[in-house]
């Protein structure tokens, strides 16, 4: 084997790497057929590889992942919430729906209802967003005031409803029907819904 061309062993390794030129392969094949030492060397190399590859494949010990997880630094709360959202898509969708809906309600009311409005009646007087039922007058219908106050000095034969405002009664004032003051968002929603179904 000492008299063999130097490149033969190199060709053997190139062959084992699956990375050999065709001429080199032919040369190697021809040489191995004629040289027992090199044939033996080549066989030993192939056997070595087979042996190393036969080394039993092993798996990580039980509980490995849990041990690794225990080593990690603690994660932030934000991530926990994001994961909760990801794991509960339906609840997240429902929560988002409610959020947008209530946002919609709020904007609906705040856009449309910021102006001062009241039931038109020729007997009523108005001073600085306060509707006055003058003393001695008698109003025979329901009164309705939004975003303003009402001062009752005369008498009203009907209901009085005040939204986002205050009601002042003079001692001589008199209301025969119901008096309602509504000034909270949900009270208003409830009121609007009730009137929707009436």
């Amino acid at each position, binding site marked *: 084997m000492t008299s063999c061309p130097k490149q033969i062993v190199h060709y053997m*390794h190139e062959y084992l790497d699956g990375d050999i030129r065709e001429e080199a392969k032919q040369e190697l094949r021809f040489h191995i057929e004629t040289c027992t030492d090199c044939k033996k060397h080549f066989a030993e190399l192939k056997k*070595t590889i087979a*042996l*190393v590859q*036969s080394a039993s494949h092993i*798996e990580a010990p039980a509980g490995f*992942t849990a041990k*690794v997880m225990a080593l990690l*630094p603690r994660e932030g709360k934000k991530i926990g919430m994001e994961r909760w959202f990801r794991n509960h898509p339906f609840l997240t969708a429902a929560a988002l729906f409610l959020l947008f809906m209530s946002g919609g309600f709020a904007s609906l009311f705040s856009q449309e209802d910021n102006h001062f409005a009241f039931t038109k009646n020729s007997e009523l007087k108005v001073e600085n967003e306060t509707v006055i039922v003058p003393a001695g007058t008698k109003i025979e219908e329901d009164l309705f005031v939004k975003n303003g106050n009402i001062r009752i000095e005369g008498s009203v034969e009907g209901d009085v409803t005040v939204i986002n405002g205050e009601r002042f009664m003079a001692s001589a004032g008199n209301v025969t029907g119901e008096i309602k003051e509504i000034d909270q968002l949900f009270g208003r929603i409830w009121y609007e819904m009730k009137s929707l179904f009436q």
Partner: protein
Amino acid sequence: MDLIVQRRIKQVIKGDQNAFGEIVELYKDKVYQICFRMLWDRHEAEDAAQETFLKAFLNIHTYNQSKKFSTWLYRIATNLCIDKIRKKKPDYHLDEEIAGTEGLNMYSHLASGGQLPEEEVESLEVQASIHEAILMLPEKYRSVIVLKYIEELPLQEIADILELPLGTVKTRVHRGREALRKHLRHL
């Protein structure tokens, strides 16, 4: 699988540890195997494998997502093992193998613990010789041989893992094979 891994890694970068748990599940056997074949000690291999994943988690932002994740992970594992081998080098004198109790130690080192039937003893001896041969390799040959023949990775990937030129990897595989041949040809 690569797509899943990439998605999990994006979640890990955001700080999601459960996503990292899935990555550990996917790669734990491969990483443990590299560590075990490099170190040949179950406890040391487990420590090294755990350390590999911890390092990967802490340095996940340095991972280039356009490259293969396994390459990056195996690089951490091999570098860790090479460090450990260098640190404990004095333990690895060749004459230690002559000691009469060595055979017993070899069995106790084998991964498949517990009682074994008689007919497996012979293959156990072969296994022990293979381990011994791998263990006798200097670490630069050992890492390429483990990656090539235990993990069965292509040479180019080994070059990427070890950050070496392909030619150097080939030379090391050739020399590693020759060294192994000297130890194993009599089996």
